[in-house]
C-alpha cells in the first residue's frame, strides 16, 4: 500500500469458515499495511472478524484467500518475536502452571540467564499490578487478574510485534487507564509494532496512531483514521483535547454507519448462512 518496508502487510485477505453444511464468510477482502513501529487500533462490530484477522496475521489460521506478510516474508506459521494476547484470556493461561511460570514460559526459549528471566517476570507482573500473586494458579485469580497475567506474559516477552485482542475487556476503568499507559510506554520504549483490537472507541483513539474501522460482515476495511494527536499523551489532557473528541465522534459515526448497512440493529449475524439446510 505505502512503503515497501512495511512490518505487516495484509493483502486481499479472505476467510471462510466451513464446517459441515455451515459456511461463514468471516472476512471478505481486507487490505492494509502496518509500518514497523506503528501502533494501529482495530475497531469493528462484534462478530465482524477481528479475531479471525488477528489469528491469520499470527499464522495460526490459514486464510481462504489473499496473503499476509510479516517483515517482508509471507506468513506460514507464527512469526518469531511475536506476542499475542488472546481474547479468551482465561483459556490462554496454563492451569497447571503458577502465574510466574505462565509468564516465564515463552522466555525460556530466549537465551538469557535465569535471574534476568525472573527479573523480567517480576517487572511485568508489577507493571500490571499483580505483584504478590506469583505463586498462585491462574484459576485462583479473578477474571481481570487473569487477563492481566496474559498481558504481563506478552509484556515480559519483549516482542517486536504485538497483537492484542480486546486485552482490557475485564478490568476496571482505573486499571484500564493504567494499562493503556503501560502499552504506550512499552511501545515508545521498545519500538514494538502493535495491532490492537478494542471495542472502546475512546481507547482506540487514545492509544493508536491510526484507527482501522472494519465493516460488519461481509467484512472489508470500511474506513481509516490517522489520529491527529501529539505523541505525548496522558489520560487527563488528551481525553480533554477537542481533537480527541472530534476524532472519536468520527469513528463512532463510521461504526454506526457500518451497522446500519447490515440491517440488524445490534448484531453481525447477517454473515451466517446455511449452505444446504
Amino acid at each position, binding site marked *: 500500500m505505502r512503503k515497501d518496508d512495511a512490518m505487516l502487510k495484509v493483502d486481499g485477505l479472505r476467510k471462510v*469458515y*466451513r*464446517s*459441515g*453444511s455451515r459456511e461463514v464468510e468471516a472476512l471478505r477482502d481486507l487490505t492494509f499495511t502496518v509500518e514497523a513501529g506503528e501502533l494501529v487500533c482495530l475497531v469493528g462490530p462484534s462478530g465482524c472478524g477481528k479475531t479471525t484477522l488477528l489469528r491469520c496475521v499470527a499464522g495460526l*489460521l*490459514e486464510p481462504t484467500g489473499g496473503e499476509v506478510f510479516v517483515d517482508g516474508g509471507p506468513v506460514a506459521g507464527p512469526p518469531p518475536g511475536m506476542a499475542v494476547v488472546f481474547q479468551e484470556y482465561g483459556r490462554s493461561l496454563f492451569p497447571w502452571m503458577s502465574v510466574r511460570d505462565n509468564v516465564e514460559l515463552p522466555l525460556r526459549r530466549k537465551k538469557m540467564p535465569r535471574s534476568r528471566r525472573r527479573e523480567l517476570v517480576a517487572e511485568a507482573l508489577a507493571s500490571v499490578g499483580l505483584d504478590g500473586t506469583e505463586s498462585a494458579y491462574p484459576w485462583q485469580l479473578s477474571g481481570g487478574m487473569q487477563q492481566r497475567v496474559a498481558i504481563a506474559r506478552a509484556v515480559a516477552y519483549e516482542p517486536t510485534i504485538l497483537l492484542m485482542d480486546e486485552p482490557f475487556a475485564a478490568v476496571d476503568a482505573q486499571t484500564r487507564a493504567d494499562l493503556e499507559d503501560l502499552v504506550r510506554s512499552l511501545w515508545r520504549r521498545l519500538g514494538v509494532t502493535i495491532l490492537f483490537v478494542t471495542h472502546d472507541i475512546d481507547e482506540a483513539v487514545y492509544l493508536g496512531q491510526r484507527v482501522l474501522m472494519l465493516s460488519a460482515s461481509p467484512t472489508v476495511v470500511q474506513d481509516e483514521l490517522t489520529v491527529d494527536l501529539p505523541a505525548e499523551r496522558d489520560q487527563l489532557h488528551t481525553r480533554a483535547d477537542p481533537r480527541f473528541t472530534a476524532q472519536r465522534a468520527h469513528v463512532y459515526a463510521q461504526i454506526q454507519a457500518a451497522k446500519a448497512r447490515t440491517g440488524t440493529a445490534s448484531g453481525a449475524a447477517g454473515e451466517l448462512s446455511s449452505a444446504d439446510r
Partner: protein
Amino acid sequence: MTAPDAAAPRTFRGGRALLGLSGLAGLLVLVEVLPRTGLVSADYLPPTSRILAALADEAATGPFWVAVGDTLTAWAAGLAIAVAAGVAVGILIGAVPVLRAVTASTVEFLRPIPSVALIPLAVLLYGSDLGSSLLLVVYAAFWQVLVQVLYGVADVDPVADETARSFRLGAFARVRHVLWPTALPYVFTGVRLAAAVALVLAVTAEMIIGAPGLGAVIAVAQTSNAIPTMYALIVVTGLLGVTINIGARAAERHFLSWHQSVRGEIPA
C-alpha cells in the same frame, strides 16, 4: 449434530482409510518376510501366504461362520451389559461424592481379580453355555467402562456445572445435559477399551471352557498343532477388532463432532 461431510473432509477420510490399509499391508509383508528369511522357523510362524490360504480354507466351511457368529453374540451381549452397567454405576458413583468415597476401596479390590481365576466359578454357575462367557466378559469389561466414566464425570467444567446449578436444573437434567456430554469422550475410550477386552475374554472363555465360538476352534487348532489354521483364526480375531474400532470411530465422529478432539482435526 451432523458429522462433517463437506468435500474436503471426505477426501481426507478416504486418505485415512488408505493409510490404515497401508499400515495393515506393512504388517502382512513383515509376517511374509520374517519366516522366509529364516529369522523364525516357518513351522512355528508361517508366512502370510500360508496363513491366508488356511484362512480361505476355514472361511469356506459352515462351522467357521457359526463360530464367528457365536463369538460375536457373546461379545455383543457382554459388551452391551458391561457398558450399560458401567455407565450407570459410574455416573451414580461419580456424581455422588460420598458413594465414590465409600466404594473406592471395594472397586480397587475387585478390579485386579483376573477373569481367568473366575473360570471355575463361571463353569459352576453356567457350565459351558453362553452364560459363562458372558459372566467373564461382563466382569472384565465392566471395570474398563466404570473407571473411564469416573474420570470423565470428574472432568466436568466447574463453570458449566455452576451454570446448570444456577438455573436449578434437576439431577436428571444435569446428568443428561452436563455430566454425560463431558464424560462422553471418556466413555468412548472406555467403550473402545471394553470392546477389545470383551472380545479377548469371549475368545479366551471359549478356549478354556469350550463354549462354542472362535475360541473353541482356536483351541482345537492348537491341540492339533494346526499352526497355519491357528494363525488364521488369530487373524480373524484381530480383524474383528479392527472392524469394531472402525465402527467406534464412526460413532465418535458423529456424537463428538462438537468436541475439541474431533473439531480440531477438521481443516477449518
